[in-house]
């Protein structure tokens, strides 16, 4: 297996090099045979990478501790699902996952006969360059099939914090998002290399970009959910450098997804769109660089990593290459395009939206890098933690929410102000009434109230848009409400899918604002049988038990919960002592209802009869997960049925593009 694994990796380099060369020769000589051979090379590369990936799964699943990677991240007691998930627990495995996903994406591109065009050799070469880099790093620095000198009886095991369903979903989805961004990047660069200045590459990559964005969304939401359940500090987003690194491309791709609509309709912002997709791709490499370089302190960083230099060189190379291509084609890109008809138009509002999203990305990037900048320039060590980001990002996000509220009401080309005011009136009145209600109820915190009011305004606007569409449809077709709503969404999935995503963001915003502003915490030491009250909850500590399970010691407290005087069941916060891990881990007990989470951590104990708990009440946190699900549904709707606008079709027809 050692031989198969290593031969597969070496073959990966050889096939990548061959396919790159075959594509270049094929393009130079305009020879179909060479291009077909390169295509075959890419398919074989997917096959070879799959062999490596399945082999790694196999040795992890069967606990073959003669392999360093298996011994470092698994042990005999580990459940099979986490043995397999250890694939991406370390550096070498995560690099193999990256190249595996990329090879599958590349194979899908060359296999899709419907979308075959003369851009494919260029696109595949850029993807091959990425794969070649990852193969070289694996062979020379992070080989997942490296052997141990002596076979240990058992492995070190997986960090207990990684033993959570989040480990199965979060890294894979984030990687699928990161890797997915290489595809639109490759198409954009290919279009530039071929001097195709139309929006053909946007049409070809719309689904790829949206899919990458969807996976980044899932990855970030699941990551937050995992942190909330597993880390025991009661939060879901710590503005950790690596979390920020996954948020950055999400922001820039969000901007891109909006600005491409202007290019489709107006053939404008071509340089901007290309720059955004290049930036998004570079930021995805930046995230990988951050995890592996160790230049910034992060809970996500791989401890034994020295791969930062490799990634820095590759990132620098790709950035310089992309900038060179853009600069040398700039005059061609800057072709005459249709102007915006009026200042007050959807086009202008999309430009503002792009500006705010990019400003948010800049603020996050600057805050993330500031400790390094400060230490380099002034020699002063500083931290830039959650309080900084909360203060800096709050006004930017508020502006974004406000823009999301008014954008759907502004027409393309030229909006009529009176009509805009008329459409805004009801949503804004409802939002102001909501604000008044909050104040009347004694809710404190002016910033939180403003944030919630703008969120409600945004939510109302989108609801009103659905309502207006359904009403118009019912008037014309006499359909029932449900059918009209369904048909309305089905007939324009891209638009209404987008609206559902916006509604999801509003729901998330409620959760984020409320949990940041109104979260409460207490630490309480209680004796057996003693009760204490916290908010609407009454908690009674029944008993502390000690059990053994799969070689791990579990200390669990049993607590009866009453909510507003009524029994609300029993919870069991736990502390688990792993046989192979020095630190115990907390298993948080959570009681969720629609408006708040009761979050209980078993903190410490003097004896079986006297225990200390950390109790938190986090309002509306479940809305964050619900909003995340809505975002996924909305994106899926837009993804399945999105159609390209008539303007774009005509533009392409006129330009002679038959992609």
């Amino acid at each position, binding site marked *: 297996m050692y031989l198969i694994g290593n031969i597969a990796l070496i073959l990966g380099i050889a096939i990548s090099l061959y396919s790159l060369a075959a594509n270049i020769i094929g393009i130079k000589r305009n020879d179909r045979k060479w291009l077909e051979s390169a295509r075959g090379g890419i398919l074989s590369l997917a096959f070879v990478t799959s062999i490596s990936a399945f082999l790694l799964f196999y040795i992890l699943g069967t606990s073959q501790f003669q392999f360093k990677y298996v011994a470092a991240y698994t042990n005999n007691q580990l459940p099979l699902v986490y043995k397999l998930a250890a694939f991406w627990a370390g550096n070498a495995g995560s690099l193999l996952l990256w190249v595996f996903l990329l090879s599958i994406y590349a194979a899908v591109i060359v296999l899709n006969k419907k979308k075959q065009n003369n851009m494919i050799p260029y696109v595949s070469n850029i993807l091959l360059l990425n794969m070649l880099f990852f193969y070289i790093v694996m062979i020379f620095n992070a080989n997942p099939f490296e052997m141990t000198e002596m076979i240990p009886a058992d492995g070190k095991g997986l960090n207990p914090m990684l033993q959570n369903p989040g480990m199965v979903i979060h890294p894979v989805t984030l990687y699928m998002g990161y890797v997915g961004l290489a595809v639109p990047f490759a198409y954009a660069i290919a279009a530039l290399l071929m001097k195709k200045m139309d929006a053909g590459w946007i049409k070809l990559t719309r689904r790829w970009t949206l899919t990458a964005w969807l996976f980044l969304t899932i990855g970030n939401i699941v990551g937050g959910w995992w942190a909330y359940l597993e880390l025991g500090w009661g939060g879901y987003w710590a503005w950790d450098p690596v979390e920020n690194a996954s948020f950055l491309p999400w922001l820039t791709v969000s901007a891109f997804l909006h600005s491409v609509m202007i290019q489709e309709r107006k053939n404008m912002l071509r340089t901007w769109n290309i720059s955004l997709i290049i930036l998004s791709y570079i930021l995805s490499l930046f995230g990988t660089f951050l995890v592996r370089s160790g230049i910034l302190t992060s809970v996500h960083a791989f401890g034994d990593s020295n791969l930062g230099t490799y990634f820095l060189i590759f990132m620098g190379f790709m950035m310089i290459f992309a900038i060179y291509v853009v600069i040398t084609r700039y005059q061609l890109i800057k072709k005459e395009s249709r102007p915006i008809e009026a200042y007050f138009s959807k086009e202008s509002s999309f430009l503002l939206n792009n500006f705010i999203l990019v400003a948010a990305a800049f603020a996050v990037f600057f805050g993330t890098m500031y400790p390094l900048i400060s230490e380099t320039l002034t020699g002063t060590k*500083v931290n830039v933690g959650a*309080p900084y980001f909360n203060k800096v990002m709050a006004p930017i996000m508020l502006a974004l929410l406000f823009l999301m509220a008014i954008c759907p009401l502004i027409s393309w080309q030229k909006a009529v102000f009176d009509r805009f005011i008329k459409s805004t009136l009801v949503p804004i009145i409802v939002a102001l009434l909501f604000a008044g209600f909050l104040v009347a109820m004694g809710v404190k915190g002016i910033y939180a109230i403003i944030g919630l009011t703008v969120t409600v305004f945004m939510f109302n606007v989108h609801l009103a848009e659905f309502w207006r569409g359904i009403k118009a449809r019912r008037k*014309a077709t006499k359909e029932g409400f449900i059918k009209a709503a369904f048909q309305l969404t089905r007939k324009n999935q891209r638009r209404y899918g987008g609206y559902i995503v916006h509604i999801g963001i509003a729901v998330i915003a409620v959760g984020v604002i409320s949990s940041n502003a109104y979260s409460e915490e207490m630490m309480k030491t209680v004796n057996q049988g003693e009760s204490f009250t916290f908010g609407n909850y009454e908690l009674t500590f029944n008993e502390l038990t000690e059990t053994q399970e799969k070689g791990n010691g579990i200390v669990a407290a049993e607590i009866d919960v009453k909510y507003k005087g009524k029994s609300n069941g029993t919870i069991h916060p736990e502390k688990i002592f792993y046989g192979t891990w020095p630190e115990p881990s907390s298993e948080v007990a959570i009681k969720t209802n629609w408006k708040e989470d009761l979050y209980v951590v078993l903190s410490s*104990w003097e004896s079986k009869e006297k225990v200390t708990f950390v109790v938190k009440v986090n309002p509306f946190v479940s809305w964050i997960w619900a909003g995340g699900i809505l975002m996924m549904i909305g994106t899926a709707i837009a993804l399945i049925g999105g159609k390209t606008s008539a303007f774009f079709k005509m533009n392409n027809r006129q330009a002679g593009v038959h992609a």
Partner: protein
Amino acid sequence: MIKCSLAMIVSIILIDLGFDEKRVKANSKFDYNSKEFQSIINQLDMQGHADHDISTCSIKKVYYEEVIEALNQGQSEKEILQSYIAEYGQAALRTPAADGSGIIAWITPALGFLLGAVIVGFGIKKLTNKNGDKEAVPFDCVEMTETEKEIVEITFEEERRKHF
């Protein structure tokens, strides 16, 4: 199994040596639930352990105890924070200082935002048809070419299909 039991015993001892809200409360004015305590602790980086679970993080526990002790000795929030800054520098806190070189951290995003706003403002001005706002109708149907007519027809057809 022996290894596991040892780890468990050691951990139980460590946890037991941890903090106890009642022990703290017994002879003191401030405890872990005091607003003053929360305000200070939320500003401290605790050597990168600020977001760790208090029940399993020994460094965070030390900070908790030190802050409580300082508060109960009558030190103010400012004095406590200052003592940490004196010991660890600005890195003791979770945010850069609001004066000196730290101000750069706070104003750069705002400056970036303003600069971006100016650029986008100019961009919109440059990209916008100067007479667009004055025109009652975006284009004159009489002067349309065949291609433009085709575009308009397709757009209308698509819009009609979109809604129904």
